[in-house]
């Protein structure tokens, strides 16, 4: 069974401070990991995926297979980063195997 754990329901940081949203997963094979974001009154959208190894809006995430983690990081938080963040796992390339989501972390960036 695949499982995604996001231990923090709420993370509050000051503007300009570093951000780390934690995500741990459980899966027996080689998963694909994603971060999705939901801004206020908007639909869920993909932020980044591990396979792309890219930085989006200053966010990065590295897949650590040893620690089964995929933490989301940003060196300097901005007010517009305030949103709900979901870590998600797919057990099959292409996402054809249903995406499993974590419970989400609400990021609040304070001035």
């Amino acid at each position, binding site marked *: 069974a695949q499982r995604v754990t996001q231990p923090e329901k709420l993370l509050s940081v000051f503007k300009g401070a570093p951000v780390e949203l934690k995500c741990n997963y459980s899966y027996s094979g080689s998963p694909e990991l994603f971060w999705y974001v939901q801004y206020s009154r908007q*639909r*869920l959208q993909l932020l980044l*995926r591990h*396979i792309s190894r890219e930085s989006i809006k200053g966010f990065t995430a590295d897949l650590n297979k040893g620690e089964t983690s995929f933490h989301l990081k940003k060196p300097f938080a901005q007010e517009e980063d305030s949103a709900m963040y979901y870590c998600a796992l797919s057990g099959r390339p292409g*996402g*054809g195997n*249903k*995406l499993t989501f974590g*419970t989400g972390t609400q990021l609040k960036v304070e001035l």
Partner: protein
Amino acid sequence: NAGVTQTPKFRILKIGQSMTLQCTQDMNHNYMYWYRQDPGMGLKLIYYSVGAGITDKGEVPNGYNVSRSTTEDFPLRLELAAPSQTSVYFCASPTPSGEAFFGQGTRLTVV
């Protein structure tokens, strides 16, 4: 290109009533999902489909039914609404590379 379109945006049902949540995608994707989002619980998969004519249960299918007669449409049916089905419902459809496009959500209240 509309992506994933869900209707209605809001609905209030009385206990025992039935309704259908509509979901349409114009991206010619094979996969489509229905999730429900409850506070602090993340997104739970209700049903999913890997192609027209094929559907399967997710984590929380009880009380729901789906059909997939065409590639574009994946309606979710509630036959006998219960207060426990009060939630926000999301339809999603992933690309072959795994990026899931979400609908805008349906906020359902059962009273």
